């Protein structure tokens, strides 16, 4: 029920309608014009034999929404027969869905624990895992920032300021990756902070800060960049202790593991600049 926009299929899909219609029309016309045209059509497809086709379903952590959308556009430009569809949600929820048999080709998680749940459920494709990594391939990292409203009403300047009594703080709940990272950072700083709320995901923390309902929240560096001026981000040294590794992997439920592996490859190579610009770190 969270982030309905993030979950719905991308509107871009509808753009394929006309393309498909045109393709059908072309096929119908060539069929009418006889065998000669048919062979041409066939050789055209065979020319780039490695080209992929079909639908690729990617389950990805909510924090990857913007970058994966962008990377998918380039991927579909290179592979016009491929249609990438996404399911963006909290990593833990996605892991549950995959372990319950959701039909997905690729999973990109926001921490190694949630990928671990899928690995435990033997959700990763055995061949891919043997070739790359048994626990998923770590492709980016993310670390925490203190997010404050632009006018910084409580005058928060350091991580220790969050422990002040008159500072209202929002954290992620421990059950989700950003909350686990928060606990690690607090332990590293030996701080005892009582937040006013433990939100269900990092975007919810960001919303509370954006609306000025809390004085500060801990979010990912990438969220501060995506919020563009609606919140201010403060770096703090203890965030280095709480870096989240993002693993990606091809799933055993995939109907086309070659295509899925190609997407993973694409994300780690061509996608790298997009990920870097969004504020993700390199592993």
């Amino acid at each position, binding site marked *: 029920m969270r982030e*309905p926009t993030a979950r719905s299929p991308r509107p871009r899909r509808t753009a394929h309608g006309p393309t498909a219609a045109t393709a059908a029309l072309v096929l119908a016309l060539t069929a009418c014009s006889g065998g000669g045209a048919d062979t041409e059509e066939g050789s055209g497809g065979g020319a780039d034999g490695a080209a992929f086709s079909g639908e690729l379903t990617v389950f990805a952590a909510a924090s990857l929404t913007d970058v994966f959308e962008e990377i998918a556009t380039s991927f579909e430009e290179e592979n016009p027969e491929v249609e990438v569809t996404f399911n963006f949600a909290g990593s*833990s929820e996605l892991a*549950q869905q995959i372990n319950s048999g959701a039909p997905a080709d690729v999973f990109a998680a926001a921490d190694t624990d949630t990928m671990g749940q899928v690995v435990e459920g033997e959700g990763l494709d055995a061949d891919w895992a043997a070739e790359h990594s048994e626990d998923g391939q770590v492709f980016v990292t993310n670390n925490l920032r203190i997010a404050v409203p632009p006018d910084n009403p409580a005058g928060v300047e350091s991580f220790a300021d969050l422990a002040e009594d008159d500072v209202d703080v929002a954290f992620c*709940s421990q059950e989700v990756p950003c909350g686990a990272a928060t606990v690690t950072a607090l332990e590293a700083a030996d701080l005892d902070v009582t937040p*006013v709320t433990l*939100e269900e995901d990092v975007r*919810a923390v960001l*919303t509370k800060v954006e*609306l000025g*309902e809390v004085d500060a929240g801990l979010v990912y560096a990438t969220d501060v960049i995506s919020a563009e001026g609606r919140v201010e981000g403060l770096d703090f040294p203890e965030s280095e202790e709480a870096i989240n590794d993002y693993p990606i992997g091809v799933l055993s439920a995939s109907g086309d593991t070659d295509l899925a592996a190609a997407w993973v490859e694409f994300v780690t190579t061509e996608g790298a600049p997009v990920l870097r610009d969004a504020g993700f770190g390199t592993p």
Partner: protein
Amino acid sequence: MTAVATRSDRRAPRTRSGRVPWILVLPALVGLSFLILPFAGLLVRAPWPTMVERVTEPEVLAALWLSLSTATVATLVSLSFGVPLAWMLARTEFPGRRVVRALVTIPLVIPPVVGGVALLLVLGRNGLVGRYLDAWFGLTLPFTPAAVVIAQVFVAMPFLVITVEGALRGADRRYEEAAATLGASRVTIFTRVTLPMVLPGIGAGAILCWARALGEFGATITFAGNFPGTTQTMPLAVYMAMQRDPEAAIVLSLVLLLVSLAVLVTLRERWVNP
């Protein structure tokens, strides 16, 4: 006296006899099993050996208590504002009444999360009204149990209003008119004639309202946040548990279901079928 009794005795079995109306009973059974099956799924998957241990954890009890108390307060608040609102919609004429009636159902239509955001924008610390509450009285609502109640009233009161309005429309207005010709004021008519007539309707509406408030999730987590002991109601605890420990989520769901069923069955007997 006896004649009347025997006649009614004779009549009663006759209405029940005859063939079973399968055209009604079959869809009814399909409907019933559709509603019950998910519950059976929970029962099957529940981790029975560790049940007692999990249920008596202090966090579970705190969430359960918070849920029951906020839903009850939300129902009382809804009754005090919702019954007069239902009366206004059913018994008075004013321009734009149809629009108002449609507006009452807004919380039923919009996703509760959106309702929660809307509440933040109005009653939040920087909200349209909330900023004055903060500046003048030092009162901030979000992240408090009061915010939980407000979120619940927002989503649950329409159920009460619609039910009571329906009951008022179905009630025989001639009793009210008779009271008026005898010189009763409108308030007296309402409290002495109208209210007693629609009491079963109010009871049914209150039960719907309480049940909806108890299950409230989206508006609560958005407007009131989620903190154990303060704003974490059972539905929020279930959702959080689902992220890491689905078995714990099943236990919590069962607790919520059983407690609410117990309350609803008891109340229905007392209020709706006195």
